[in-house]
């Protein structure tokens, strides 16, 4: 047996190897090799000293100190949990407030956009019977209305049916406030000018669609009849002229 193998075997015996054959071989080697014998003796003696050394113990008040520390940890964990819960509650409140505020902002923005949409159609909410759009047409102030077309007749001419008693802008869109079978949808209706044209406007189609969707059948018939009436009035009032012959 070589020294290297003998030392390897020595460590195995230290770990409790029980093999009589190998033990005999090792003992034979140790008897022949003084270096390995010394090493084996020193190793056994040093480890024996280590095992015999008195066991170190913590201070007597260790358990007491540990208990205090555990209690502190327990309290701090509980306090942390309480603060986390409180934070969560406050966060929920903040979240709810923010949600309400955001909803309010969205509503306001929607309302403003809606108002802006009506404005771009040339519809003005007026308190009296004076129709601002008529003035716009006359002066060409409103780009959506063709100013070159002749504008005659009073605002009553815009009424498809019945007398005008409602707000001016309602009449502008071809509705009457009186006698109409329901006024709820009037605000959503598009404008039909007295020359029969519908001013080009973004969102007009969707407005018409939306308005028609929300109308009852009776309201739809009434609305379309009103516009037909308006167109008929227009045709009766204005005779088409040849622009070229006028120039000559």
């Amino acid at each position, binding site marked *: 047996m070589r020294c290297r193998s003998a030392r390897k075997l020595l*460590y195995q015996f*230290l*770990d409790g190897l029980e093999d009589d054959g190998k033990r005999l071989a090792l003992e034979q080697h140790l008897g022949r090799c003084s270096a390995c014998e010394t*090493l084996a*003796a*020193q*190793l056994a*003696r*040093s*480890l024996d*000293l*280590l*095992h*015999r*050394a*008195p*066991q*170190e*113990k*913590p*201070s007597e008040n*260790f*358990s007491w*100190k*540990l*208990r205090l*520390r*555990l209690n502190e*940890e327990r309290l701090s*964990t509980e306090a942390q949990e309480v603060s986390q819960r409180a934070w969560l509650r406050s966060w929920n409140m903040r979240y709810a407030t923010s949600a309400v505020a955001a909803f309010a902002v969205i509503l306001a923005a929607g309302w403003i956009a809606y108002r802006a949409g009506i404005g771009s159609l040339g519809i003005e909410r007026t308190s009296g019977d004076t129709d601002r759009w008529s003035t716009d047409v006359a002066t060409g102030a409103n780009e959506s209305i063709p100013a070159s077309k002749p504008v005659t007749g009073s605002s009553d001419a815009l009424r498809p049916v019945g007398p005008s008693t409602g707000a001016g802008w309602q009449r502008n869109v071809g509705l009457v406030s009186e006698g109409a079978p329901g006024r709820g949808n009037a605000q959503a209706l598009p404008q039909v000018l007295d020359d029969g044209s519908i001013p080009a406007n973004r969102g007009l189609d969707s407005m018409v669609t939306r308005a028609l969707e929300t109308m009852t059948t009776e309201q739809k018939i009434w609305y379309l009849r009103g516009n037909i009436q308006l167109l008929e009035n227009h045709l009766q009032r204005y005779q088409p002229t040849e622009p070229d012959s006028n120039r000559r």
Partner: protein
Amino acid sequence: MFADFSRDIAKLRELTDEQLMLRVQQGHGASFDVLVERYKDRLFNYLYRLVGDRDEAEEIEQEAFVKAYIHAGKYKTIAKFSTWLYTIATNLVRNRMRSRSRAPQLFPLWSRGHDGEEEKPIDIVDPDRSPEEKINDSELREIINEGIRRIPDKYRMSFVLREVDHLSYEEIAAVTGLKLGTVRSRINRARNCFRKTLAPLIEKGIDF
């Protein structure tokens, strides 16, 4: 009332570590006290052999028990409680060693015991001392501490777990996170290093 309490504690002492831990997980604090009583000396001995300082060993031990208590919910009964506790303590020691290696000048004791360090004869015992004069406990303690301290850091943990706490190789591998073969070779290297430190005293034939 006190008699009832004593009877309860006596009953708890009959339970295994794992059974006690299950009770701790259910919020039974007294079970943890029993575990502390069961392991505080063993764990302290291990930590003291590793760090070589009583105050520090006690501090780490306290931290290890606190961690074990706080994270009791994470303990799974598939592992032995002792292995789990030793792993916590070993990781705490490792963290300290790591932080100390960044500032070695503050902790000169820890900066020693590296690979390649020149072996010096142990000088705890008076060289003029007669071999017949028996070494007392405190001297033996110092010799042992010095012997362990001179073992390189990376071998020391496995060595102490094996020779001081008598853990099996498998348990040591679980605690240190090393492979079985690595544990075996590290322990043998440490044994040899320890032997070399104590060899002069042994050669002198001083009676321990």
